[in-house]
């Protein structure tokens, strides 16, 4: 397959930038040593596909403020705990006495809410399309079981609108996308069609094995060599054209798109999800009306450029010096699926 990649690359006869959108692909590409197999000039750029990394400083600060309300229990996924806010992380807020709990599933929050009827249990909800259905399913359960002390602070985000913005920028030329596997299990391949039709950029939804990734790269190069742009599915065992429509219906029942701020990138139109008005009694932002000051990215931090594929992590002046996995400054160094943490582990 490597020979085929080299032949196709030679046929294209110019540098090619492919972007892997998903953080799990970033880790898998390092784990399998894929970059070292590719011809020079065929670059794999890491994209904005880690929900932890793109959560804004202000959203972390808001979550901390929510955790400090009287009788509040804030729940979130473990990856979110060490993301730096303006002054501290959730982990540090917990050390200072806030009741912040790590959950494996948003459903765990309902048990906590039932056991603590006099407290408000707030789920700080980050995630892409893979994760949002589980939050929607949890709201369905909360409604069914009439658990009224359960609230959501949603910073959930949508992948396709972010890719649309990336393709409109002149910062970096992206010749093709290695599309996320399990996000696509939910949404299917159709929501990416505009990337091929509007931007003429090839897309291949790809699995996580070494053969899968090499095969996804081959399919992308073949499209580029033939001058076509289409959305193709390499990861056929779990991805279909239409995805899991039931899960999509659950998302649409409880959530609607809204503008959303992506850390290091900025506010992207209709790229986030908020609770629909019918469920605003569960929307922590509406119910508790917290506000925190605006904040700026840490000085020197280049997460924004890394998340857009403009720079690779080692080009950031803080990388491996002031910013390490033990003491992260930027969010891309916090999550193991962040490009900086993956580079730090595998590529120093």
């Amino acid at each position, binding site marked *: 397959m490597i020979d085929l990649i080299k032949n196709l690359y030679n046929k294209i006869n110019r540098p090619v930038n492919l972007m892997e959108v998903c953080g799990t692909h970033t880790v898998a590409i390092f784990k399998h040593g894929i970059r070292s197999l590719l011809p020079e000039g065929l670059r794999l750029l890491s994209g904005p596909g880690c929900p932890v990394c793109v959560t804004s400083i202000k959203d972390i600060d808001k979550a901390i403020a929510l955790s400090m309300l009287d009788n509040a229990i804030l729940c979130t996924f473990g990856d979110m705990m060490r993301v730096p806010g303006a002054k501290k992380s959730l982990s540090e807020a917990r050390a200072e006495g806030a009741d912040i709990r790590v959950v494996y599933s948003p459903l*765990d929050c309902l048990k906590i809410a039932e056991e603590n009827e006099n407290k408000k249990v707030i789920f700080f909800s980050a995630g892409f399309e893979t994760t949002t259905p589980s939050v929607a399913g949890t709201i369905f359960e909360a409604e069914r079981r009439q658990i009224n002390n359960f609230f959501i602070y949603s910073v959930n985000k949508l992948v396709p609108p972010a890719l649309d913005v990336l393709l409109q920028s002149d910062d970096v030329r992206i010749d093709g996308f290695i599309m996320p596997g399990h996000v696509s299990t939910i949404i299917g391949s159709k929501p990416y069609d505009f990337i091929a039709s509007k931007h003429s950029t090839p897309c291949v939804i790809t699995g996580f094995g070494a053969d899968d990734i090499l095969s996804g790269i081959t399919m992308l190069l073949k499209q580029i060599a033939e001058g076509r742009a289409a959305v193709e599915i390499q990861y056929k065992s779990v991805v279909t054209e239409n995805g899991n429509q039931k899960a999509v219906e659950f998302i649409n029942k409880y959530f609607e798109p809204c503008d959303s701020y992506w850390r290091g990138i900025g506010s992207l139109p209709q790229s986030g999800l908020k609770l629909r008005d019918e469920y605003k009694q569960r929307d922590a932002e509406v119910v508790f009306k917290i506000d925190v000051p605006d904040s700026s990215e840490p000085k020197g931090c280049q997460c924004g450029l890394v998340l857009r594929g403009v720079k690779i992590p080692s080009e950031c002046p803080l990388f491996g010096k002031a910013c390490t996995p033990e003491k992260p400054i930027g969010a891309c160094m916090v999550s193991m699926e962040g490009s900086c943490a993956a580079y730090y582990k595998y590529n120093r």
Partner: protein
Amino acid sequence: MCLAVPSRIVEIDNLLAVVDVYGARKEISLLLMPEEALIGDYVLVHAGFAIQKVDEEAAQDALRLIREIADAMEQEEFKE
């Protein structure tokens, strides 16, 4: 964060199921499943919900791979 893990269903009670994943038992919800799942089926599980059936061979392949990737992440002593 967007990784879904293949898991084998060992018990079903209406929309709740118990799955076996790497020898550990977990309670999950079948609410989001687009099709009926039966005991013995493999399903992809993410954040406590099954999201799709997978055939056994694909599941076994994915489990081997995910373990490698997950191990790569969990070996980090700096995780929370």
